[in-house]
């Protein structure tokens, strides 16, 4: 499928995330300053770690 391209203002990103959280679990692995992966998730880091 051809990608459809949108823009999301950063101030609206939290609202999007909250909507996603209401639909299921959201896991957010993020990369630290050294390039290592730090797992954090709004639903509880223990779920991942």
């Amino acid at each position, binding site marked *: *499928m051809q990608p459809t391209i*949108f*823009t999301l203002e950063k101030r609206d990103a939290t*609202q999007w995330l909250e909507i*996603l959280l209401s*639909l299921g679990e959201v*896991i957010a*692995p993020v990369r630290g300053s050294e*390039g290592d992966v730090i797992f954090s998730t709004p639903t509880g880091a223990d779920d991942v770690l």
Partner: protein
Amino acid sequence: MQIKHNGKRHEVEPIFDDSPRVLFNTRSCDAKGIVFLTRMHEMEPADASYLRRAHNLTVVSLACTNPCPSGFCVCTNSGPFLSDGYDVQLTDLGESYLVEVGSQKGHATVSCAQSLFRPATESEIGQRKRLEAEARNRFGEETCHFASAMRRVSTGRVPDALWEKMSDWCLECGACNFVCPTCYCFSVKDLGRNGGWVRCRMWDSCQYTAFTLEASGHNPRAERKERMKRRFFHKVSAQYYQRDATVGCVGCGRCIKACLGTTSMPAVVGAIRKGKWHE
């Protein structure tokens, strides 16, 4: 699976996890790692437990505008930006994100909050292209040695002496396996629960001596060099390339950081290509 005794006999039932999940801010290499794992688990016999979880997983990746120092994803077509393998790909444009929808699951993820999104402008799409070009340029000259290593590994032209030398620098810690987005070797354990048992797969390392130890005491890969040979055959051989149309590496570079010895993917691939190991 769950195993219970009903007083007369044991009953075995599969356990499926159908919970919807979103993996948010996934880096490009990790998104490609999931594609690799899914492809592997789709092969016969297909792994229903994995595939049902994968089916309910939506991957929202974040393009790497500032690639990590040890990554080499340009060599494995796994980044820094993706052209496929994501449900949604975000690119940080400063005040906003460019949002590329790459699948029906991705479409559903955006549709649930449609009012927050607006069609991207040509200028924003142009900015994304510039950011990708800048990110790729930060890798310097793109020289990939996988093809050379693949030829040598696949045709048995890596001398045993070289495997032995390289394996002397492996401490068998398993770190390379446990940080690798494409490793999936596992062992099986039965855990007691609610008067029965749950049979679980536990992530394991093919670099551990006991990984292939058989109940008879025989171990087909008792020597470290044999285990290392197997790992890199699995990662870079043409046989696996023919099957999966990709190498078993997404160029994340984590094995470089995690290795307590010096046997990371680039180090071993480089040694195979040159036919010699650094001392």
